[in-house]
């Protein structure tokens, strides 16, 4: 079976600084991969390289069996970036308008079809925010907003969901509900790659872990990760391991 993501010997540098050093990993269909590592370890860089947002200096990346630079099935990936980098914060866009963006890659040049609109409504319902559809997205709480972005990914009928620290600034209750939702989606067959600073959350939810700090320290199932020394190696013995429940 073709892996969803296939990264081989990827190296990425910002000028002199090496962010990723010979990293290889694969994500299989149906995986829930937790991507963890200390601050500045290259997690986000790896995710960006994986999605084709940045080109690696060396190595190759394939998405659904296609080299990432030639990849043309953008609708198969739902990407939720870190909240801080979203401009959505100040733009007058409604939740429904945001979710419909998930259909844009399908719709081509013309207007959205009635079917596109219906799929967007279904996505709103699936993450349980239909009642917020006409609200401006910047009026929502952090948890509701992340649900809207997930709904956008669902509307695009994505097979791969890539999330970069989606619950920063989200209260504990909404956070649990949010991860519950991710579990459900994963059970429904959607592949998930999740960057999360709270290792407890990741080990509870993900079935596979990639632990990186410039290099890949662990890549495998969650049980073997918990038993291994990868965590202390990657974070260093003096490093602060975030492991708390808000």
């Amino acid at each position, binding site marked *: 079976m073709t892996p969803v993501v296939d990264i081989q010997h990827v190296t990425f540098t910002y000028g002199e600084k090496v962010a990723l050093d010979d990293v290889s990993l694969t994500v299989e269909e149906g995986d829930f991969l937790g991507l963890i590592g200390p601050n500045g370890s290259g997690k986000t860089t790896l995710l960006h390289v994986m999605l084709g*947002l940045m080109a690696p200096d060396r190595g190759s990346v394939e998405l659904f069996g296609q080299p990432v630079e030639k990849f043309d*099935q953008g609708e198969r990936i739902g990407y*939720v970036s870190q909240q801080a980098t979203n401009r959505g914060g100040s733009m*007058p866009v*409604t939740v*429904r308008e945001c979710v419909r*963006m998930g259909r844009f890659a399908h719709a081509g040049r013309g207007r959205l079809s009635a079917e596109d609109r219906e799929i967007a409504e279904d996505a709103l319902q699936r993450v349980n925010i239909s009642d917020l559809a*006409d*609200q401006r997205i910047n009026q929502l709480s952090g948890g509701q907003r992340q649900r809207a972005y997930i709904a956008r990914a669902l509307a695009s009928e994505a097979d791969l969901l890539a999330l970069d620290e989606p619950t920063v600034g989200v209260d504990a209750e909404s956070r649990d509900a949010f991860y519950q939702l991710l579990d459900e989606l994963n059970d429904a067959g959607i592949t998930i790659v999740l960057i999360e600073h709270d290792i407890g959350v990741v080990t509870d939810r993900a079935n596979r872990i990639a632990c990186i700090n410039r290099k890949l320290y662990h890549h495998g199932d969650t049980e073997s990760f918990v038993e291994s020394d990868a965590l202390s190696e990657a974070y260093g013995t003096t490093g602060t391991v975030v492991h708390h429940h808000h």
Partner: protein
Amino acid sequence: MSGTDKHATTADSQPTLETPDLREKIELAGVSLVGVLAAVMVGFVFLDWVRHYPYADVAFEQFLIAGAWMDVYLGTNVFRHAFMWRSIATGVLVGVVAPLVGTYLVHRQMALIGETLAHTAFAGVAIGLLFIAVTGWEGSLLVVALIVSAVGALLVQWLTERTNSFGDVPIAIMLTGSFAVGTLLISWGRGFMSIGVDIEGFLFGSLAVVTASGARMMAILSVVVVAIIAMTYKELLFITFDEQAAKVAQFNVSGYNTLLVVMTAVVVVGAMQVLGVILVAGMLVIPVAAASQVARSFRETLYLSILFGQVSILGGFAFAIGASLPSGGSIIVVAILIYLAAIGVSMLAGRSGTAISTH
């Protein structure tokens, strides 16, 4: 829009003065009215262009006679003159396309780029003056400005893509730099030729600056810009809202960015005639800022910014003509009054339970 959808049950939880449907209808009616007005203006410019042909000459005469009757009823001395109509036509079209392009610019936080391109266009005017004086070319000054401004737009785009961390520093250098070159060229040119063009008109905007060919250019570029935005509404919205996600969805982000910046350059050159180099950015930004205060969706922001833009243009013209003052300043002052009113409305609405602030 979305008011008729089966899930649109939140109307109850959003107490507004009118029902959403009525508000939408009023906005749509307003935008349609602006559309009809703009179409009539494009029609006038076209008649003006072909008025030496049979039938067109009669139609053109009739248009001005209708204008004379308007003068009689309004007690003015405006609408009987073809040159006034050229200015009004240019203004009405600016009132459509500037807020349209500006909506994307403002929410991409690229407002400064509009200002920069206006200053680049000024350098274009200076280069055009010299070019025409030296070569005796009979083309329009604004065509040269248009080309220089479009090249400047590509340069600005190139700069912003390569300097992520200090995005606005190279832009600010380009803004002042192109203006400096423009002033030097004009002063230098004055040394050996007579410059018969009203430089102050280009700086501050004037009803008298608009020529037949200038109005014609504005009409053509308006039709093109409106068509492009209608075709790329979705793409521009996605890229403006979430550039990275749009890139992951395989949209050609850099292509659309370039398109947006070049469209801005083109609009700025057209709008420069009535608004002036220094004030043109205001028309890109202020109606959009006002609309963003009160709009509930992106589509509504587009509609309202066009409406606010049009009211600013017409109100500004009325004031400028009435008080014999420059049009550019008048338009911007009216636009700012609308902006202040929008803030007031937004604050009142916030107090009564509907939070519609932008932050």
